[in-house]
């Protein structure tokens, strides 16, 4: 018998608490302090070298086991696994572990679903599904696999939590499943009810189910590592701590130019005021042709402004259309400006979207918001920009939603 509540507590620690070597590293001091201030598990642990002995025990066992590799089929396959291919399990490279908002995101194990993609795919792109080892947290839409099926141990594949990585971001190979299982994962990704006959059926969600909170955590983990992969692809990645806190995109385009080409394909006539722009600017500052803007014009007395709605499928643009927003307030505060308002004409049942906010200062490059809060159910937003008090300019917005995430809940 197991407790889902306890499993959730352990999952939060496994995914977002820093390992002891990071806690002990002075170069991580600032982030560790932030983490200790917000983490109920780390904040209440007594100072204890080597994580209360668990890390030491794990290291010792690793040493002993590594001197006698796994026996049988799994051991043989592990040493001969060859190139990444659909059906293989890998950990994301440990060096990609990263801090975000006071949490240390540890790299997950993923199942490779497909390599490459459409014609505009980068050759190194791979599509993966995230996995987790404690099946007590599996829910509808997850596929629980037995040890014999994974060559590793029991785990479940989060068929709804798929994203693009670069093959170079894959770390240790851990096992492999059959093509039938890969097909079942893809099918479940499309239809959470399409569970194969041989698979265990997880219990449907209940009110306040611990697994709902686990899924929120898993989305954050996937988002972090998919974003990291994409960030490598961006020609102008956000730098510095403020950049790390900003929302990042899951896009499967290798350059802003490739992204712009894709937008123009979906919305012919779209233009940009400048040539040299980032991925984020390509989405937010795209100016749709006048005839399309007219269709989205507001017929009330409200003073509204055009914005862009971008619907993605697996990181690729599916729809690019105009929407509108109004501004409730713009206030100058110390070191910048705070703005709040509301976006209109959002699709019904929008789920998992993000809002990108830029402030275009006249004659200068656009400034990204340092803080952006977004409620997609009402369209309300709040954004802060670090700009000079007397800067003239205007705000530009884009709402981005990956439809492949709509089946997540």
């Amino acid at each position, binding site marked *: *018998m*197991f*407790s*889902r*509540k*306890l*499993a959730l*507590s*352990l999952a939060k*620690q*496994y995914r977002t608490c820093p390992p002891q070597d990071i806690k002990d590293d002075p170069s991580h001091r600032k982030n560790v302090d932030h983490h200790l*201030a917000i983490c109920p598990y780390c*904040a*209440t642990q*007594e100072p*204890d070298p*080597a*994580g*209360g*002995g*668990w*890390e*030491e*025990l*794990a290291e*010792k*066992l*690793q040493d*002993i*086991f590594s001197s*006698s590799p*796994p026996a049988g089929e799994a051991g043989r396959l*592990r040493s001969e696994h060859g190139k990444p291919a659909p059906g293989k399990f890998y*950990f994301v490279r*440990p060096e990609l*572990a990263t801090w975000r908002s006071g949490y240390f995101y*540890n790299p997950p*194990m993923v199942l490779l679903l497909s390599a490459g993609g459409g014609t505009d795919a980068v050759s190194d792109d791979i599509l993966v599904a995230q996995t987790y*080892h*404690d099946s*007590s947290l*599996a829910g509808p839409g997850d596929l629980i696999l037995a*040890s014999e099926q994974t*060559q*590793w*141990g029991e785990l479940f594949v989060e068929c709804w939590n798929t994203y693009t990585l670069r093959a170079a971001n894959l770390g*240790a190979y*851990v096992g492999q499943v059959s093509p039938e299982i890969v097909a079942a994962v893809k099918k479940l990704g499309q239809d959470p009810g399409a569970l194969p006959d041989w698979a*265990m*059926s*997880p*219990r449907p969600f209940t009110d*306040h189910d611990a697994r709902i*909170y686990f899924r929120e955590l898993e989305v954050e983990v996937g988002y972090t590592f998919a974003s990291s992969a994409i960030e490598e692809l961006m020609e102008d990645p956000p730098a510095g701590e403020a950049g790390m806190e900003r929302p990042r995109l899951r896009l499967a385009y290798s350059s802003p130019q490739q992204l712009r080409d894709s937008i123009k394909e979906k919305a012919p006539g779209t233009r940009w005021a400048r040539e040299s722009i980032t991925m984020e600017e390509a989405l937010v500052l795209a100016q749709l042709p006048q005839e399309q803007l007219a269709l989205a014009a507001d017929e009330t007395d409200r003073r509204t402004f055009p914005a862009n709605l971008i619907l993605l499928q697996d990181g690729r643009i599916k729809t690019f259309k105009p929407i509108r927003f109004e501004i*409730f307030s713009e206030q100058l505060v110390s070191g910048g400006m705070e703005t*709040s308002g*509301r976006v209109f004409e959002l699709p019904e049942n929008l789920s998992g979207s993000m809002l990108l906010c830029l402030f275009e200062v006249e004659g200068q490059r656009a400034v990204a918001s340092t803080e952006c*809060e977004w409620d997609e159910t*009402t369209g*309300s937003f709040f954004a802060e920009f670090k700009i000079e008090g007397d800067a003239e300019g205007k705000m530009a917005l884009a709402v981005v939603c990956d439809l492949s995430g709509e089946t997540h809940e």
Partner: protein
Amino acid sequence: MSKIGKWLESQEAHDVLARVARSIMRHWRSTGLSLSLFPQDRRRDDPIDDLLNEIRSELSLFVLESRSRLQEMLASGDKNCHCYLKAAFINHQIDNVRGPDKDRKRYLHNRIADLLRKSPDFFTFVRNRQLLAFSMANESILIQPLSLEDIEGIPFPHDIVEELEYEHINKKDVLLKLAAYFWNQASNMWADKPVQVYLRDFVDWIGLHVSIKSMAKINRLADGDNPIDFVEDNQRRPDRECFDPELVKIWAQNFANRLSRKEKAVFHLRCGVELTLEDTALKLGLKGPSGPAYHEGKAKEKLRSFLRDLPWLSLDDLNEEAFSLFCDTLFSILKKSVPES
């Protein structure tokens, strides 16, 4: 002897396992999270050294018994694999200590298995090579084993058994009626689909409701079977009855630190001072009520997520006194974030 076996006998292993055992003890004492992993009568009375030795031996046994599974996982290069190790050991403990006497539990398990196989109303299945599952429908779906929360959520049917004593439970017709009831309840959890429920879960559920004290008195059953006295009284959960106020205060501070400046102010005024949205907006110099409503919603969402797995403070484990202390501490911290008017 295997390499791992040799190491477990070394002084180094003794020291490492002792440190882990102390860490488990500290966690157990400080959070109550692990309290239910140990038999209640052992928690407070035994000398600490005896308990530490017991945990250390159990760890050693766990490593030996699970070495092939652990080898696969630890060899995979996961930097945070000690968390996996910890989770695996805790689950192992839950399985092992739920009933203090595994033989008694096994006896009841075998008796019910026999009854189910012979009954025309039930279908039995062997899952994962050894676990017995049962259903009342020939066509039924495989399900996950039930969680502690699932099992605790199934009330005991007092119309089937009047007294929660072993002598009233351990009768053929009662056990079959209880099995049918349990199966129906489990099927309800899966949206009324006929399921294959594990016999082990059914026995654990009985164990939650039957007092071991009354069982211990039984010498011979009315229907001629041997006595079984296997289950501790789990209805009383000391980790739910007492709480650590210092921990609750630290958690309140942790939660306050998670809120943005605006969320702190709005949450305090709305939920601590209980101002209306309009008055909150006025107090904070905001134009209308939508701003405070937005920040209040975000803060509440963060609170739900923060409390969901904490002892004494989550909805399914709420200790009112602990929650009251959490709120008082939180609001006294948040008060400082509201601008003086």
